């Protein structure tokens, strides 16, 4: 039988070298999802009962108001007895704020400002930015209906509702134009959230500050602290998440917050 030892030796050495080179490590899975950021401002504000003013123009009057004068009248909501002299409630108000949304990619330590899925830049506070307070939170949509008020002669008060200072009905009555609610110039009526793509392991950082009282439209009653607070909400893939840091400002003027979340 021919000597096969040299062959076996070569095969053994080759097998050992191949075993050294084997690597069965699997690469990490990267999952992309949509992050949605929204902000809301609340304050302790007065409540008002507002009515549309109609007129019975019939001659003689037939008790049916037929013309909407186009005016709205608002009066402070009568306080309950006993109770505080002025009715207040915590409600949303339109308020401007500065904002910066950034992301730290997995495995890095540097922040980069996000760009939304519609191409919007995620910051209004970069050096030289002309309008840091371009963003504004939404109005208060709450307006429970009221029964009609008794008419006065030919003037009728219809379609009554209780609204806060942050409701567009009151702001129209007061003649105050605060602007259009938006987030980084994207109207909230178009999309209520600022959406961008994130991957597993990325860390989202949200920084925001309220516009100072001195620069805001004068629709809040500053004789009493309205306790204005700005807060952010974050959802990943449609699921709300709890952020690290603080996502709610204090009630101090021009205060803000910084919060973060690492995508699991």
């Amino acid at each position: 039988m021919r000597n096969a030892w040299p062959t076996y030796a070569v095969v053994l050495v080759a097998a050992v070298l191949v075993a050294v080179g084997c690597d069965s490590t699997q690469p990490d899975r990267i999952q992309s999802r949509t992050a949605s950021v929204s902000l809301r401002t609340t304050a302790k504000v007065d409540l008002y009962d507002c009515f549309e003013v109609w007129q019975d123009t019939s001659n003689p009057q037939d008790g049916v108001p037929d013309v909407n004068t186009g005016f709205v009248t608002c009066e402070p909501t009568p306080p309950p007895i006993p109770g505080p002299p002025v009715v207040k409630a915590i409600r949303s108000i339109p308020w401007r704020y500065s904002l910066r949304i950034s992301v730290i990619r997995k495995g890095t330590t540097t922040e980069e400002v996000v760009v939304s899925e519609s191409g919007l830049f995620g910051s209004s506070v970069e050096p030289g930015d002309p309008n840091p307070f371009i963003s504004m939170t939404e109005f208060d949509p709450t307006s429970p209906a009221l029964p009609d008020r008794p008419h006065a002669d030919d003037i009728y008060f219809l379609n009554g509702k209780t609204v806060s200072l942050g409701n567009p009905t009151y702001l129209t009555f007061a003649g105050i134009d605060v602007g259009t609610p938006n987030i980084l110039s994207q109207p909230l009526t178009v999309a209520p959230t600022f959406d961008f793509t994130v991957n597993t392991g990325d860390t989202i950082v949200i920084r925001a500050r309220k516009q100072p009282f001195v620069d805001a439209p004068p629709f809040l009653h500053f004789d009493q602290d309205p306790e204005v607070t700005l807060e952010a909400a974050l959802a990943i893939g449609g699921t709300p998440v709890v952020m690290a840091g603080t996502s709610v400002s204090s009630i101090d003027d021009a205060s803000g917050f910084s919060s973060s979340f690492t995508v699991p």
Partner: protein
Amino acid sequence: MSVKTSWLALLCGIALALPVAAQDEPVPQAPPPEETPAAPAPAPAKPRASDPELHRWGGWTVSVAGWNPTLVGAEEEVALTSTAGVGHPLFQDSDARIRETLRLVYHLPKDNGSIVGQYDGMYNDDSLQYFSPGQFQVVESRAFPQFLGVFDNGTADGVESQALRRSRDFRLEYQRKAFDSKWARGTWGAGYREVSHQRTLGITYFAIVPNLPPTIRPVVEGNTDPLRLAPLPDGVTQEAKFTGHGLGASFEVEFPVHRIVSIVSGLSVGLVRGKSTNAFSTTSSYYAQSNTPNTPLTFDELTAILSNGTITEIASVDQQVVVAALSTTSQSQFAESYDIYVGVQVLAYKGVRVFATVRDLSYRNVGEYVVPRPDGSTETTSLDAGYEGYTVGVSWRF
């Protein structure tokens, strides 16, 4: 692939090959007895396989081997981490890499021994990253304790390290046959050793997402970088170098189990005297206002200014860097080296051998770390390094 699995592969190969080799030559049948005037003389026994004859001027053997040693005893703790309330160290270990061993032997004429030169070089350059943004679970255990961490409590939410560990071993020995029998051959050696070891460690501790009150409009000017007051990372650099030379001795044994297969084993010990140099430095930082740069702000003071301060107050806040450093050169020190191996050797062709061994190479007291303590004293840690793995190589004698 772990060393344990590789050992198993090696032993399986041997277990498969040896029985086959045992059937290499059929047993000759004894001829039936016959009435012949004279039985033929038996054929001479085949000579055992051997190396080429020495030339008049001697001979050479060149040997090259490769191995993927696992670094042991030289792990560096870069930080402490906490998971579910349980703390544990974070080590910078090392990935195994293919390294070479070179051996050149000059065989003196008339079988008067050999002059052996051998060189081993190990080089491990590894990096580590551990990031947990916003979760300050990393304790800066290697940094000098002053102003560590954005919260001044010595914690970070990320750590990055780079570690270089390098060993060089050169031997020049005279070797001679100690004994040679049917069952074993022994060789002793003695000679010169030179050992060097270098270790460099760099660690950076980060505060990636401290969530400090935002320094954005309206509390800063329009041309201010929103990240101006992002915390500077803390850093640690530690270095140790040792070089020494001395004497060593070795003993190798070969057990022939077949005409061309042997079990080989060896032990080499070295004692060297040398000097080591070492250096250590830490950088950290604290927040202070420009009118009082030497008065660190506490974390509460900092957040109060950033939350409710005026534009002027916030603009006056900055970070001051602090450095703590120490470098020393030690007196002479003794280091030890141990080299043990066992394996299989096969004579593949006349003068050409293929071998596979399991090897353990160890260096003791090859340098030291010297670290300053807050009370002004220093803490010294002796450094060891070990390498274990399997070696595959070929030698050629001519």
